């Protein structure tokens, strides 16, 4: 049956270049420490990796946070005594 182009094969015919000379090394499972250095490594490298992304996500979040705090303060003022007075003087609120 004709089908679409498929981008992946099955084991042994995956579609990549032919692999040769594969060597596997392993140490005894009794000597392995699966989580060795995971936490201490993350403190250094995790922070470094996230830090490297900071130029991309910090500016948008900073602008978003600024808009959020500004609008909240503005809304708070609009609903305060001073805000009502100012609005009334500007003739915005009609007669209440």
């Amino acid at each position, binding site marked *: 049956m004709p089908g679409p182009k498929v*981008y992946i094969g099955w084991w042994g015919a*995956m579609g990549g270049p032919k692999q040769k000379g594969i060597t596997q090394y392993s140490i005894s499972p009794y000597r392995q420490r699966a989580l060795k250095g995971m936490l201490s490594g993350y403190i250094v490298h995790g922070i470094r990796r996230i830090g490297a992304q900071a130029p991309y996500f910090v500016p948008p979040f900073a602008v978003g946070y600024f*808009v959020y705090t500004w609008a909240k303060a503005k809304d708070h003022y609009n609903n305060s005594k001073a805000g009502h007075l100012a609005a009334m003087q500007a003739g915005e609120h009609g007669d209440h």
Partner: protein
Amino acid sequence: MRILKQNPILRLVNSYIVDSPQPTNISYLWNFGSLLALCLGIQILTGVFLAMRYTAHVDLAFDSIESIMRDVSYGWALRYTHANVASFFFIFVYAHIARGLYYNSYKSPRVAPWSIGVIILVLMMATAFLGYCLVYGQMSLWGLATVITNLLSAIPWIGNDFVEFVWGGFSVGNATLNRFFSLHYLLPFVLAALAIVHMLTLHTHGSSNPLGISSNVDKIAMHPYFIFKDLVTIYLFLLVLSIIVTQYPNLMGHSDNYIPANPMVTPASIVPEWYPFYAILRSIPSKLFGVIAMFAALLIYLVMPIADTSRIRGNQFRPLNKFFFWVLVVTFGILFWIGSQHPVEPFVTIGQVATTLYFSWFIIITPLVGIIENSLFDIALLAKEGNK
């Protein structure tokens, strides 16, 4: 082991979740698919048991749920699990979609899983909306059943008749509750079927990976590697879920929904749980165009495979697009927050600016960024050629 490879049905299981070749380098962001499947499973299971005692009648619905919570052994666990997993379902689906946007997973050859995903998203929202109505508290009746169905009245010419047709009466009532229950039971199974087609279409070409290039040179089997990696986040989720269900079960709910629905009293303020899309709806003065914009805000994800003009898949090597990805995330967050605010200044203007930014992200920014990045790559390559 042989039977796993020879039995016609087990062969499928084997090719999907045992021997399935996976890229070695997929990150934890590729774990959300299995979490979503788990959520759907939990929802169907808990839902079927809730339905054994739930009563879809305007006089009994609210009390039948309270009865599940108080009189049925561990009924509270069943109900709170169903309610909270619904919230997690959405958190996970947003994360899953964000992964798709960040790594440009929607690009050929994965247009089909992406497009089916968008349909799944729309259907998920419909299912959640119907389910929330079933509780028949004040928020069910006013926040959702009334406000959302009323949107249909914006359809030109037939709008008002159509809303009454949907209600099965002149207001939200018993007929409405019954049909909502029927559909809320049906749709998750449609979702399950779509989720299977989602994985079917993904399986044809396999998962993408953070580098965005073919990983055919470097695959490992789903089992044990990714089965156990998926289990890490599954256990983490179950841990957080059990803390929320047993300690903070109403954290993500609204207190007004503990007041039985009363058609004579409107709640102090109506906040549908659709914040980002509700904000888009409200930022457009015309009701009809507001409703169109709200649906367009969901369906616009379908344009991504065409809108993204970049020759490269994934943001790993696309600095400009990476920046604009975060712009979209923040815009979405702002819409989320604006939707929960009263429609007064300065929130109205902020909502309108965010709505404009949201739509331009898909139809202007994304194509433009792709063209700019392509051109910069070309220029850099040409310069390199010239130096030879």
